[in-house]
Every structure is written in structure tokens, then in C-alpha cells.
């Protein structure tokens, strides 16, 4: 579904991604872990099409299309979804209207009729139950005054509404207490299926106690320095990042 080949990316002239390779197939859940500042969010932003990042080398194919050629909105409408590490507050734009607009834009792109108010509300009710989000949040402006946990829950709710083919979840677990983490992880698990791929970006292994990944990759200093199965995450938990990063630093210095 997603094939990343040797991606290099800069921001403000500084190289952040230094040759990333990654293959993700439908139905798989991949976790990317790594210390702060290693480039995890940069990778997510590059995939979602953020214009500040300049891709200097490499290619990305998403569902047989050249992803880097598509606008941000077309990537979304093709089925790529990014749950933001820091969801943006947008005063004055109602969450419900925004999500309705997003759902109908996607339908339009796929040649479907827009949902009418009744059909939309019905789907919304189902998905609200799925991710345990409260109606009162959705009638407010987008993320305005939401707590950290509410923002993350809203991201997962949007994922549920938009039914993406590939969901990239950037530290959706950070800033959550244990109850909120369980609710968010449950929501994500319910959205897991054989047609959908999920890329979990996380700093801590604790999310992976709830969502079992098929593969785990360690991103360090703009490169994937180690890949493995979920046991790699446990090993990281046990030994810390140092055992990998020291190795990588050593290799780089040789």
C-alpha cells in the first residue's frame, strides 16, 4: 500500500530525513519508535504533504500513485490520514461542520453523493460510540479549549469518520492518562482491519501494550536504524534507546 524509498527531506535547509525506506501492506500495523527529535513527525508531515518540508531525494508510492505529486487534500481524499501530534485549535469553525465537509469532500472525490444531514448524523452517532467521544465536544469549535486527551480522541474520531486506507497516528498516546489511553487505544483497535494499514508513531512502548504491532522500526537521526517485530519494542523498553543509538552512532562514526 505504501512504499517509501530512500526519502531525504529538509526543513529550512537542514536535512532531517536522511534516507528512509519502509514498506507497508494493507492490514499491517507498523510502529515507528525513536527518541525525541529523530524525525518521526517530519516523516509524518512529509507523507501528509506539508509544504514547509522539501523532499530532496527518494520516492513514495501510495496505492500505485506517486504520493509526492499529490496535494495535501488529494492525499487525504485518496485515503491517507494523519492524526496530529499537536492537533490545531481553530476557533470559529464548528467541529461537526468541519467533519461533515471533510467526509463529503472525500465522497465527492470518489464520485459519491454527499451525505445528507440525517445520514451524516447517523454515522456520526455510531462512530462517537466507537471512540467514546461526547457530543458536546463536537458542537464546539475545532479543538478549541479541548484538553490534551480530548484532542487526541477527536483525532481518532475523525479517523473513524473518514475511514482511511492508511492512518498515520503521530504520538496519539502522548499526554494521555491511563484511562484515556485505554479508550483511545480501544478505538484504534476497533478501526483495525485487513484493508487498512496503520502507522503508529510513538515515543513510549506503553501504547503497544494495547495495540499490538506487526512490525517495529526505530528511527534515529533521520534513518531507520533497526526493524523487527513487537519484541523489539519490549527490548527497547527494557534497555532504553541507548543500546540502539550508541550502536548507530558508532556505525556512523566509522
Amino acid at each position, binding site marked *: 500500500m505504501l512504499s517509501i524509498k530512500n526519502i531525504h527531506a529538509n526543513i529550512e535547509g537542514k536535512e532531517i530525513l536522511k534516507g528512509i525506506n519502509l514498506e507497508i501492506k494493507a492490514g499491517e500495523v507498523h510502529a515507528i519508535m525513536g527518541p525525541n527529535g529523530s524525525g518521526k513527525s517530519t516523516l509524518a508531515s512529509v507523507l*501528509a*504533504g*506539508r*509544504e514547509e518540508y522539501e523532499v530532496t531525494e527518494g520516492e513514495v508510492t501510495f496505492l500505485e500513485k506517486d504520493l509526492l505529486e499529490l*496535494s*495535501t*487534500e488529494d*492525499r*487525504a*481524499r485518496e485515503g491517507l490520514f*494523519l492524526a*496530529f501530534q499537536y*492537533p*490545531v485549535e*481553530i*476557533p*470559529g*469553525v464548528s467541529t461537526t461542520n*468541519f*467533519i461533515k*465537509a*471533510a467526509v463529503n*469532500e*472525500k465522497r465527492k*472525490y470518489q464520485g459519491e453523493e454527499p451525505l445528507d444531514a440525517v445520514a451524516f448524523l447517523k454515522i456520526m452517532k455510531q462512530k462517537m460510540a466507537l471512540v467514546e467521544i461526547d457530543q458536546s465536544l463536537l458542537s464546539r*469549535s*475545532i479543538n478549541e479549549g479541548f484538553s490534551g486527551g480530548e484532542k487526541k480522541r477527536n483525532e481518532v474520531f*475523525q479517523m473513524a469518520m*473518514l475511514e482511511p486506507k492508511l492512518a498515520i497516528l503521530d504520538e496519539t498516546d502522548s499526554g494521555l492518562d491511563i484511562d484515556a489511553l485505554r479508550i483511545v487505544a480501544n478505538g484504534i483497535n476497533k478501526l483495525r482491519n485487513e484493508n487498512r494499514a496503520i502507522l503508529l508513531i510513538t515515543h513510549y512502548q506503553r501504547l503497544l501494550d494495547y495495540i499490538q504491532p506487526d512490525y517495529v522500526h526505530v528511527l534515529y537521526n533521520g534513518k531507520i536504524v533497526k526493524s523487527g517485530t513487537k519484541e523489539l519494542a519490549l527490548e527497547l523498553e527494557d534497555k532504553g534507546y541507548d543500546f540502539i543509538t550508541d550502536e548507530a552512532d558508532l556505525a556512523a562514526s566509522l
Partner: protein
Amino acid sequence: MTNVNYFKDQFEQLQDSGPATAITELRTDGFDTFNKSGLPTYKLEEWKYTNISSLFDKEYQFANDAQAVQLSDIDAIRLAGYEQANELIFVNGRFIPALSTIRSAASQLIILTLEEALKGEYQELVKTHLGQSSIYLKDGIHALNTSFIQDGLFILIPKGQQLTQPVYIYHIADARQQNTLSQPRSLIFVEENAKLQLTETYTTLGTAESFTNEVLEVVVKENAFVEYYKIQHDGLNASQVGSTHIHQIGRSYVHTVVVSLNGGVIRNNLNLILDAAGNETHLYGLYLLKGKSHVDNHTLVDNKQPNCFSNQLYKGIAGDASTGVFSGRIIVQPDAQKTNAYQSNKNIILSDQATINTKPQLEIFADDVKCSHGCTVGQLDEEAMFYLRARGIPKEAAEVLLLEAYAADILVQIKPEPLRNHIAELIYEHLSIS
């Protein structure tokens, strides 16, 4: 300026057309001032950013054939809520009773031409208050309006009348045959304990150029309540200087919202003269500029008495090659202790060719006052744009969503719901068409 001889002929004809009255005297004073001052140029501080004198190269003329405008022309431009409204129609600057609809009882709403008002029981009011704005607006364009006062309105809401039906004034300029100059002039009295909701809107018919040079004077007495809405959504061929001079002579409440969507060169003067202790006034403005539109809002709040409160919030968006100007002047006179005066002007620039000029002016001559002012010029929030686009909302639609949200806190200040919804739709359409 090429129109001088034309104006002179027209002025003389008008003066000769009837007996000498207080109005002919006013006109003479006006024309003297006009001859001395000419049209304002950018050399005047107050006109630094807005050049109207060059517009007069277009040789605007007065159009007298009001018959050419039909009721059907008005049907096309009615504002929501009109079924309940008193609709007053001006064509080419002159009140046309035949096209107007007055729904309120004569005991609630008195409507006369200024000439009629001068003959009866209101003559002292007219003599005292008509022309008071020239104390503040001393330039030639204001004087040009005064030089040609004719078929303007005198409107009075008598004591204790809480007028439930709003007053809508439609200014229609007929530019189907020629470049047209319209100069509406009205005087409104809101008596003690009375209430008025007033909305003005402007429409140019035809494709020639129109220039509307309006002066509206409003006098507000003790315990009166006035809401004033001005909606500017005319063609690019329509330019305007609109002066609204509100004199709060009794302790009263005034709430104004000026919305400018489309137009050529627009200058709005809004004066609030707080001439009684404890006056309260709110001034809101929204300008959403595209193409080559030029909108200049000049506000003046003159605190003459103690304990007055005023709050101003003007928000603007400048796209394409448009220009927005805001100049907010607050005067606190020596007697005006305990004044609270606040002012804020916020702008978003959408293009490299767009310009915003913003200038607060505080002149404070009392010591125990609270005044604040601030202005910002920024851009659309990139983070928010990316967030919306990352959900599949196209760039243009995302921009409209954010701009609508930006406009929302001015929109909510339009209190009557039908009018607010109507303006919301106009804003949406205006922002959606690129």
C-alpha cells in the same frame, strides 16, 4: 478637477428653484467651503491613503430621472426581514416616496422631507442639528453634500416609541446612462426612551460609474437605544464617501456595525459624539476586500462628558490588489473623566499586492481615564490551513472556512437574526468566488 463649472451651474439652479430657507443658507455655506477647499487630496492628513479627487475625473453628474427606477429593481436587492421593515428608497440621492413602504404607525415613526420638516413643528430641531457634522468633517467632499441638500429625510422616533419594525434605507444609484453622483442627506432624531434599528445598503444599477456622497446625522436622546447597520456590497464601479455622524446628547446606547464587501473606493466616516455623561457606544466593522477594492474606515469617538464607555473592533481581510485603511481617533476632552475607551483593529493580508494601513490616534486631555488601542496585521494561520487540508478540504474551501470564522465575531454583532443570516450568506458567497 473638471466638474467645477458643472457644480456651479447646478448649485445656482438649485438655489433659484425655491424660496430662501434655512436649507438654502446651509447650502450657500457648504458651497463656499467647497469652493475654498476643493475635493480632498492625499495632502490632507485625514485623506492620506484615500484619493477621491482623481475619481472626479469621471465627471459624475446628478441624475434626475428617478422614474427610470422600478419597484422590480428594488425587489432584486431587498434585505432579509424586509416584510417587517419600513423600507425607504433613495434614488440618485433623493428620497422617493412612491417606491418606499412605511409600515409603522405615524405615531411611532415620523418621516418627512427636510424641506417639509422645516415648515412645521420640527423646524427648530432641523435648524439646530442639521449640519452639526461639519464641525468635525470640514473637508470639501462633506461640503459638496451640504451644497446640494435636497429631498433628504427627516426621521423622528417620538418619545417612548420602541420601534419594533426596523428602518431599511436603500440607496440606489442609476448609472445605466451616465456616471452618476448621488448625495443623500438625512437627519434622524431618536427621542427619549425610543428605540431604532436602522440599516443602510447601496446598489448601483448599470455599468457606468457611480459615486455616492452621503451624510447622515443622528441625534440620540436620553435613554434611547440605536442599532445602526451599514452594508456595502455594490459593484466595483461604485465608489462612496459615507459619513455617519451620531450625536448622543442624552445618556443613551448606540451599537454600530459596518460591513464592506464589494465596491470601488469606499470611505466611511463614523463619528460618535458622546455628549452626555454615561453614554455607551459600540462600533464594529468588517471589510473583506478583493480585486482592487479600497475601503477606508475612519472612526471618531469624541468623549465630551464623564463616564462614557466606547468599544471598537474593526476586522479586515485584504486579498488580491485591495487596500484597507483604518484610522481610529479617540478624543477624551478635559471634562470626560472616568472615560473607558477601547479600540482594536485586526487585519489579515492574503496577497503580496494587498495593502493595509492602520492608524490609531488617541488625544487624551483628562487624567482619570482608561483607554487602550491595538492593531495587528497578520496572515492566515498556516497550521490551521494544513490541518483542514489534511482532512481533504481543498485549499480554497479551507480558506473560506477560516475567513468565515475570522469574520464571525463581527457577524454576531448584527443582532436581528434575518439580517445576520442574510449577511452571513453574502459573506460566504463573497469569499467563495475568487
